[in-house]
């Protein structure tokens, strides 16, 4: 029996007002008179009417809301109704909470198959045609996860409201596990690898992302053991061997680099740096675990890890981003015996939200890809809900725009964790599943959501990309699990090992932990599922969210289970770790998987990757002098890659856990900074400094220097905030494209080599990293013309450091008139791929990328960074800003706008060599920091900076103007601060 309880605001509903505005922005200005929203709970359970009335009561706030049972009530006449609900099997958090509340109220559990399903009903009045309302509906739902029901007033009246049906999952799929015939010709093997195992009806199950080599290797293995693989075995191997999980491109040999890029360059650099640092080495656990861990103080370790969730975000931006952020939170929980997430970071690489071009995945132009604006709003909202609901401060992030992110956006998410060095006297970063330990799955249940995530994100996105890879996160289920494990079970010593269920689901997490004990045995029928009828292979590889896998000693199990029950967390024994050397899976007694662990983990064939050099020569802009530099600066402040992103900073809780010190918005002018400082242990003065570097635009000239600049930028940002370069560690996140092309691999090789060279030169070790190698989109334009969009080779470098006293960190805002302005570092004619060239290109509708890419002199910069750190520790610096995108002009403007104080600066004295005013203003030469210093500290500051290229270039003033004199001493910029702030805040003011 289905009963609908409909709840509506009796008081003004802010959500409806905002929606009305959003609808109008779809080109329907003046057409929409009113919008009303009704939240509808469809209860599919046997309840008597008295109970229904009690339920309605507790779902309604008597002061603000009214509820009706089954009737849908609206205040006035309306013209259209749109109901948005979830598709079967899609995570419905509100529905789940409603169910729990009802069960708690009525003191009785829902039966299997009973449930609560929410939908939102929009009543819209206005002169709207069907196509208008269709447009509105499209803006409200994503057909991959939601359904939309549209009705005119007449239809609504005729049918007396809306249907009483619910999106219940009904699976008729077969329970039996099939064998896959691998004794077929290569053509068929390739097909299985690419499109997946064939179902009875001839349809394919979706990508295994395995090429012929892989398929032949598997064929050979099963010939050896004298049988055919089951579908579950083949799926399982595909997950484990996927690029996503095994990072084969970084692992395999490349040209002369026999041990591969990762071992040789990334790990190689870290090992060398650690050796050099000797007793000063602060790395604790690097590369081996879900996150990298460094020393925080004598008591604690901090961990860091950044991830991407690009492919899912392209399909469903909200779901992709929220599962990204809660997923990387589990990488903290999965470090050692479990670290507590204490800081989140984010970064979105997107196409211009104003871009209107319509693209399709398929040639029949049926599968439209989402608009850049939709993707932008979705990913921002995803991290909003994921971070805020989890009570983890989102302290820092960035936006970067380029048209080449139109096909696949890049969604970076990262989490810093905190864990005591010792737990019950043992080293907290060590863990080992022991033979005989129980395999315990904790947290959410398994469903159809998240099938083939690992394999499809290892390929270009096209019309074959499975919608089943899409999921929505459930932060509260995870929060309950996180609290129960990290704050209680861990310190009670109730488990031996723990890892996250991410890509590949159980098939990867269990097999991964099985390495520790050297074997595992799983009984699939014990795995709790969201709904009956799920095929065994899906249960095994599903990436359903909010799950951790733990190894629990048998004698600890009763205590562990009791604790989880008391905390409202589901925990289930699904098998046992063994030392059989095998990964064995049974389903209702029948063996459905029995593979040697060694083959599963190390059986994949080695590849020899070949690269091919790419030579690039770009068009240089004409050397004519820019006349109106005032205007150029103002335009620069409005640029997508420079403008204020306050609307994001303000909707992400960055102060929960009470550790926020340097916040996302700095000074009176609320300017976005590149440096965040957090205080993760409240009774300690020590802090964490976070910064980042990302310059994909530089890849258009040289990926080697792109990577070098990303590293220098990340370090520079941290140092500007007060970090000590001797206590800085780095993360690398590569987001490449077409990594099967030798030219792209050559670019990759250059970038990774730069990471090696500069990490060593700066003495900053890599502690963790991740890559995503196929960020390409293959589709069609409106005229069915096939096209491929590849992201520019993108590298995010995240820096994390520890400072002894958070009160000795520095914000970027100018503090007092009369303070002296210094520039540290040299300025050269290095505007290749700069924001300024992009600005000129747009103005003249050309592609002036140029070739003079900024080059990094690590030795020179390192001395500046070390000396500045000493100055900051001595409290000689009043403000400090890293000079990056937009050059000196933007850095000075930020300092002035943030402090709401004028500056009076002369460029004639800047160190370096640059001959043109506009180039001097906008050059993106690395290694530069602009600081302000109280005249009282001038002597000591200059003494400490001796031997560096550093010059006094002007003063902070109490005028409301930014005044800059050019190389020739003439005034070139004279900007009113209010005007500048207006420009800086204009681009996203309606977001």
């Amino acid at each position, binding site marked *: 029996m289905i009963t609908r309880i409909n709840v509506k605001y009796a008081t003004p509903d802010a959500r409806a007002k905002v929606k009305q505005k959003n609808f109008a922005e779809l080109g329907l200005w003046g057409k929409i008179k009113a919008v009303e929203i009704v939240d509808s709970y469809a209860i599919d359970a046997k309840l008597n009417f008295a109970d229904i009335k009690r339920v309605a009561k507790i779902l309604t*706030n008597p002061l603000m809301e009214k509820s009706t049972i089954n009737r849908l009530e609206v205040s006035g006449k309306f013209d259209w109704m749109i109901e948005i609900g979830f598709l079967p099997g899609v995570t419905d958090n509100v529905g789940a909470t409603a169910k729990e509340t009802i069960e708690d109220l009525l003191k009785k559990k829902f039966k299997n198959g009973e449930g609560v399903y929410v939908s939102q009903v929009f009543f819209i009045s206005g002169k709207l045609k069907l196509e208008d309302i269709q447009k509105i509906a499209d803006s409200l739902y994503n057909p991959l996860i939601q359904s939309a029901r549209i009705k005119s007033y007449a239809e609504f009246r005729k049918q007396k409201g809306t249907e009483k049906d619910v999106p219940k999952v009904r699976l008729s799929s077969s329970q039996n596990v099939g064998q896959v015939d691998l004794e077929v010709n290569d053509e068929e093997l390739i097909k299985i690898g690419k499109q997946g195992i064939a179902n009875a009806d001839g349809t394919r199950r979706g990508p295994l992302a395995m090429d012929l080599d892989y398929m032949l290797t598997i064929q050979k293995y099963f010939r050896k053991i004298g049988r055919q693989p089951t579908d579950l075995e083949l799926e399982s191997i595909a997950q484990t061997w996927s690029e996503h999980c095994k990072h084969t491109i970084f692992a395999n040999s490349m040209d002369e680099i026999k041990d591969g890029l990762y071992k040789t360059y990334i790990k190689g650099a870290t090992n060398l740096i650690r050796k050099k640092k000797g007793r000063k080495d602060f790395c604790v656990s690097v590369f081996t675990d879900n996150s990298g861990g460094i020393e925080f103080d004598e008591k604690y370790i901090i961990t860091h890890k950044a991830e991407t969730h690009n492919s899912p975000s392209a399909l469903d931006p909200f779901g992709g981003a929220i599962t990204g952020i809660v997923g990387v939170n589990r990488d903290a929980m999965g470090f050692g015996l479990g670290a507590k997430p204490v800081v989140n970071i984010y970064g979105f690489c997107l196409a211009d939200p104003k871009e209107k071009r319509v693209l399709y995945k398929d040639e029949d132009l049926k599968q439209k890809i989402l608009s850049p604006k939709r993707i932008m709003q979705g990913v921002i909202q995803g991290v909003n809900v994921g971070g805020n*609901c989890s009570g983890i401060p989102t302290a820092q992030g960035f936006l970067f725009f380029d048209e080449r992110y139109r096909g696949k956006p890049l969604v970076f998410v990262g989490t810093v964790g905190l864990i005591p060095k010792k737990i019950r006297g043992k080293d907290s970063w060590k863990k080992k599943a022991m033979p005989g330990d129980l395999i315990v799955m904790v947290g959410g249940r398994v469903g159809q959501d998240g099938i083939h995530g690992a394999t499809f994100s290892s390929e270009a996105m096209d019309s074959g990309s499975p919608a089943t890879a899409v999921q929505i996160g459930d932060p509260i289920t995870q929060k309950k699990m996180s609290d129960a494990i990290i704050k209680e079970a861990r310190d009670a010593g109730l488990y031996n090992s723990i890892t996250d269920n991410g890509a590949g689901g159980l098939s990867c997490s269990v097999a991964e932990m099985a390495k520790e004990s050297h074997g595992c045995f799983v009984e699939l029928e014990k795995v709790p599922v969201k709904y009956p009828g799920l095929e065994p292979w899906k249960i095994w590889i599903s990436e359903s969210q909010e799950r951790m896998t733990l190894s629990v000693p048998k004698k600890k199990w009763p205590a562990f289970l009791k604790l989880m029950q008391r905390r409202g967390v589901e925990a289930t024994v699904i098998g046992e770790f063994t030392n059989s050397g095998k990964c064995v899976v049974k389903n209702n007694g029948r063996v459905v998987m029995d593979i040697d662990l060694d083959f599963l983990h190390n059986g994949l064939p080695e590849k020899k990757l070949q690269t091919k050099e790419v030579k690039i020569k770009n068009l240089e802009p004409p050397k004519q002098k820019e006349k109106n530099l005032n205007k150029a600066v103002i335009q620069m402040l409005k640029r997508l890659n420079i403008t204020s992103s306050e609307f994001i900073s303000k909707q*992400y809780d960055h*102060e929960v856990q*009470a550790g926020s010190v340097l916040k996302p918005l700095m000074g009176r*002018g609320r300017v976005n900074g590149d440096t965040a400082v957090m205080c993760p242990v409240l009774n300690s003065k020590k802090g964490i400094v976070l910064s980042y570097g990302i310059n994909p635009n530089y890849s258009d000239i040289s990926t080697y220097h792109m990577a070098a600049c990303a590293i220098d930028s990340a370090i520079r940002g941290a140092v500007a905030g007060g970090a000590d370069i001797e206590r800085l560690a780095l993360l690398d996140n590569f987001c490449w494209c077409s990594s099967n092309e030798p030219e792209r691999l050559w670019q990759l090789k250059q970038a990774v080599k730069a990471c090696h060279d500069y990490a060593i030169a700066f003495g900053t070790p890599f502690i963790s990293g991740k890559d995503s190698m196929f960020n390409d989109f293959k589709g069609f334009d409106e005229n069915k013309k096939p096209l491929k969009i590849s992201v520019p080779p993108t590298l995010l470098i995240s820096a994390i450091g520890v400072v002894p006293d958070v009160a000795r960190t520095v914000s970027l805002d100018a503090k007092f008139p009369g303070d002296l302005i210094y520039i540290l570092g040299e300025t050269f004619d290095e505007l290749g791929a700069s924001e300024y060239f992009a600005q000129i290109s747009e103005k003249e509708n050309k592609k002036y990328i140029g070739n003079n890419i900024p080059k990094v002199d690590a030795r020179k910069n390192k001395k500046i960074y070390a000396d500045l750190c000493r100055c900051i520790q001595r409290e000689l610096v009043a403000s400090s800003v890293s000079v990056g995108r937009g050059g000196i002009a933007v850095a000075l403007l930020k300092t002035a706008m943030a402090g709401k104080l004028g500056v009076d600066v002369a460029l004639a004295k800047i160190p370096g060599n640059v001959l043109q005013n506009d180039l001097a203003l906008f050059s993106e030469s690395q290694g530069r920091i602009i600081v302000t210093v109280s005249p009282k500290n001038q002597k000591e500051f200059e003494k400490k900076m001796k031997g560096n290229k550093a010059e006094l270039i002007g003063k902070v003033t109490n005028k409301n103007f930014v005044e800059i004199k050019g190389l020739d001493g003439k005034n070139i910029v004279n900007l009113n601060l209010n005007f500048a702030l207006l420009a800086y805040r204009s681009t996203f003011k309606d977001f």
Partner: protein
Amino acid sequence: MRKPKVLILSGYGLNCEEETKFAFELAGAEGRIVHINDLIDGSVKLKNFQILAIPGGFSYGDDTGSGKAYANKIKNHLQKEINDFVKEDKLVIGICNGFQILTNLGLLPGALNFNDSARYTDRWVDIKIEGESPWLVGIKTLSVPIAHGEGKYFTDKKTLAKLKKEKRITAKYFKGEICRYQDYPANPNGALEDIAGVLGAGGKILGMMPHPERAMFFTQLPNWPYLKEKYKREGKKIPIYGPGLKIFQNAVKYFQ
């Protein structure tokens, strides 16, 4: 001196319990974080505490309405314990989500509606303190952060008049030091008559949207880098603590 015992509720998505406990202990209390299920199954007794703190967070992810589901759980299992607790000479504070829960419980009048922006907002505000409460002794104004999606205070005319008469509207947003510094409007969410917090039980129950525990240290202030420079140049001492701490100290004093 004797330390008052504070019970800080946790569970189901509340998430500010640790820093709230820290603030109480910094102020000289003895704090204990207690999962609501441990109260329900009786393994911890509310009556053994002097102060009940319902901290901020996202109980049940605000599903079905902020604070609603958690309040229902309390109603279903702990109504009597709560009623007995507030009858005695004890203190209760609800911060942010805790305030939303207290209003849903009917322990405080009014309700918290969606922000006018219909969006979660984290920023600093200034509040003016009025009315008599042990929590607020000697506090005239406070600069503290808010962080919520449903913080717009609402109540009906009758209740509003009553609240005014009884001086129970204790915190109002106004344009003070921080709003001037960051150039923000006083009212962050469209709250009725700028109401940020109200009192119950003769001032012993305090509910507020702002987070005093996020203003317990000087370095939590958005303008601390400026103030530090200023104090240094004036030869003044750099403070360690922030304005929010006083609320917790007041609660401790009340029992000493």
